[in-house]
């Protein structure tokens, strides 16, 4: 464990903007894509359920 405090963890040794900018955008892209796919799937199942 190399972090003395949470503030140190978020600062990333002065590279916080670069490190968190990378991880945040990756997370947003993947979560966004998966959410839209899952919502599409849910909507289709609801439609199927109503037809049956």
């Amino acid at each position, binding site marked *: 464990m190399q972090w003395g405090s949470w503030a140190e963890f978020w600062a990333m040794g002065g*590279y916080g903007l670069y*490190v968190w900018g*990378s991880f945040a*955008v990756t997370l947003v892209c*993947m979560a966004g894509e*998966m959410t839209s*796919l899952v919502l599409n799937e849910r909507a*289709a199942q609801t439609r199927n359920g109503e037809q049956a």
Partner: protein
Amino acid sequence: MSAINWFKYSSPHSFYPLAGRMVPWFLGAAALFGITGLYVAFFVAPTDFQQGESYRIIFIHVPAAWMSMFIYLVMAGWAGAGLVFNTRLSGMMARALAPTGAMFTFLALWTGALWGKPTWGTWWVWDARLTSELILLFLYIGFLSLTAAIEDDRRADRAGAVLALVGVVNIPIIYFSVVWWNTLHQGASVSLKSAPKMATTMLLGMLLLAVAFWLYSLAAAMLRVRSIIREREPRAAAED
């Protein structure tokens, strides 16, 4: 004594429910590997003695770059299979993979820029590795636009397949660019021929996140192919 009939699942009708059953498993496993990988990346892997904490971008940069190339190869493989066997599912799989591949290509470029700025002093250089990866993004966008522009689905699949197959030539160019040309980009950190040039815990975190990205891509492709089947062959999807 009966061999498994692999072609059974090459029909949208039987693949549709199978894809649906696989999604939760892939997503669950992806989350497990992802969380473990992030833990290793931030709390186990040591600080790099040259780059300080900025190197931690490697934990998503390399897996994203691997996926961007790997998904393209799989996409081109499906596209080629579609041209050879004329199976309907092949074209659907190729088109289901393209958006996720494009996303990982964008992420490889994005995280690369954010890593380049503190370590090279620049967001971008027109060197062989970066330029060929940008061409990969254009290939994905070209494939998506071309298939979207053609009304007839099967014709769109075939046109897209030709583009995807021609573009495959770019993949070895990306991979070997750091060997063939003098570039600012470093050589491969992990190769089959030599010991990895990084600490074991760093390698572990990177591999865990690569597996997570791979499982995520499988789940995304399965969900998207189901959506495509619903659109093109509603009867194949109706019985699920």
